[in-house]
């Protein structure tokens, strides 16, 4: 836990926004931990997302919102090179992490993913025990750990799951409820101690109670981790995030849809005083 970060953080509540007068797309803060400059993602010849530039601030929650097909998940997956797994996917522009271009030739995607973890839309625990799910990452990455039991316990505690599973660590992760499975996936991700956690609509398969638990957990985790979350749910972005990027889909002259970043700003500002008409239409429900 790092108390200094909590105090510096911009207010999450919409009411607190006026107190944070900052630029629309370049909020204050020190050097961002990640930066996208002119990033486009292609699937074969098709350009799925065009020309995205935005920072990811350290130990903050950055939300990506927008209608379906706006490319927000595609951009998220370009942040830890998960797009590499899709044949024909290609990224142009620069995604930098502490100044290092993630797509440079000599960058090892495995190392990228060790530092930048990911939680998926549908909980995807391995068909293994709860314990083995959490220990998987440390084992495959060859982490030197003095006690795997302690590491597993810590990760499960940090994911707010320990009390519910401590007596059944040997049972299958698939025996848990959906919300518990998702927290198990979060525990599994933080067990390798990444710096950044990417979450791709982590609550869309969960009921409201499980969603609330994950949201609380995200706020808790942002003391130690940088989080980027893609969500369909505007209220969720407003509740949990410090920065929000609004994407939309544009149709070009050849009737092809391309995702596009419309506005990036502090969350409070984007929701109360959006700079772009399209953002306003979306957040007020006139579109999407």
């Amino acid at each position, binding site marked *: 836990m790092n108390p200094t970060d909590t105090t510096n953080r911009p207010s999450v509540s919409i009411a607190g926004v006026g107190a944070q007068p900052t630029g629309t797309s370049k909020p204050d803060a020190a050097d961002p931990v990640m930066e996208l400059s002119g990033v486009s993602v292609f699937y074969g010849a098709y350009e799925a997302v065009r020309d995205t530039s935005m920072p990811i601030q350290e130990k903050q929650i950055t939300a990506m919102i927008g209608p379906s097909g706006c490319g927000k998940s595609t951009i998220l997956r370009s942040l*830890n090179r*998960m797009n590499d*797994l899709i*044949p024909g996917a290609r990224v142009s522009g620069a995604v930098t992490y502490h100044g290092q271009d993630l797509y440079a030739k000599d960058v090892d995607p*495995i*190392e990228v*993913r*060790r530092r930048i*973890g*990911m939680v*998926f839309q*549908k909980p*995807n*625990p*391995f*068909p*293994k025990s709860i314990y083995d799910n959490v220990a*998987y*990452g440390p084992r*495959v*990455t060859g982490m030197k750990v003095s006690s795997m039991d302690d590491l597993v316990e810590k990760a499960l505690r940090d994911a707010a799951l320990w009390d519910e599973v401590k007596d059944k660590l040997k049972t*299958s992760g*698939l025996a848990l409820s959906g919300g518990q499975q998702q927290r198990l*996936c979060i525990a*599994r*991700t933080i067990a*390798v101690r990444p710096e950044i956690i990417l979450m791709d609509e982590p609550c869309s398969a969960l009921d409201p109670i499980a969603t609330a638990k994950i949201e609380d957990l995200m706020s808790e985790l942002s003391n130690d981790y940088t989080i980027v979350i893609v969500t369909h749910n505007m209220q969720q972005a407003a509740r949990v995030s410090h920065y929000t990027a609004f994407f939309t889909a544009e149709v070009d002259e050849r009737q092809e849809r391309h995702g596009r970043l419309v506005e990036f700003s502090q969350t409070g500002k984007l929701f109360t005083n959006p700079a772009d008409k399209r953002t306003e239409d979306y957040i007020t429900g006139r579109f999407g």
Partner: protein
Amino acid sequence: MSTSTSNAGSAAGSALRRGRRRPVDSTVKVLLVAAALVSVATTIGIVIALVQPTIGFFQQVSVVEFITGTSWTPTFAQKAYGVLPLVAATLTVTGVALTIAVPLGLGSAIYLSEYANPRTRKVLKPIIELLAGVPTVVYGFVALFALNPLLQKWWPTDDGPAFQNLLIAGIAMGIMIVPTIASISEDSMAAVPRSLREGAYALASTKMQVSTRVVVPAAMSGIVAAVVLGISRAVGETMIVTIAGGLTSDRIVLNPLEGAATMTAFIANISSGDIPVGSLDYDSVFAVGALLFLITFALNAVSIRMVRRFREVYE
């Protein structure tokens, strides 16, 4: 007005009643049931056909002698009916075959499912499956006249493999069952959801780790089924062992460089000879056949158990 509507209503209702029969439908059903019954009836028929001569055999030879005797010489002047030499040869050949087929089959399955790009896989998989269509008599002759001379030539010591031997039969049989193991294992690996692979990659796994630590365990039930099916095929395989495996059965042969008769090779050999129906030799064929049937049956039962035990539900 109201009467006309009710009339129209009852007309619509009566249209639902069974008016005409559909003879084609019921005929098709009878044919399909008959088709299913043929295989059931065949199985029952085999069991019945096995039982009578087997009982006849055990009226003259004790069960204890059959399962503990170490010499099988029904065609010799000095007759002995201990089935162990045949069982030992079957196990040896099967062991050699699995040593070849499990690594090759699993390796090909992992390559096809995890490493090969879709185009390569589309070409390679049918080619591997084609291997399963090669007649076993071809494998037998290739083993005997192509592989074995090579093996004898390259053998470092003087006491190399015999003209017919269990090693060469096992190798040929191993290659024969590679497609079975590869194809079924690959199917079950391909059925592992993509989301599991993504989860593993997101935890900084290498491709090898994703394959061996996530995909293979998740596909274990299918892989076990594939291997057991491979064992069943190996135990029941006849042509290769008859041609290339040798015929010794008067003692237990454990050295795979020597030839020996498996259960199936014995049956094939003696059946092609001239034996009188109802004689002890004739009955002995059925006793060995019954044992073979029991072993295959047990293997199937084990495989069903294993598949259930290893089944890992993904969702």
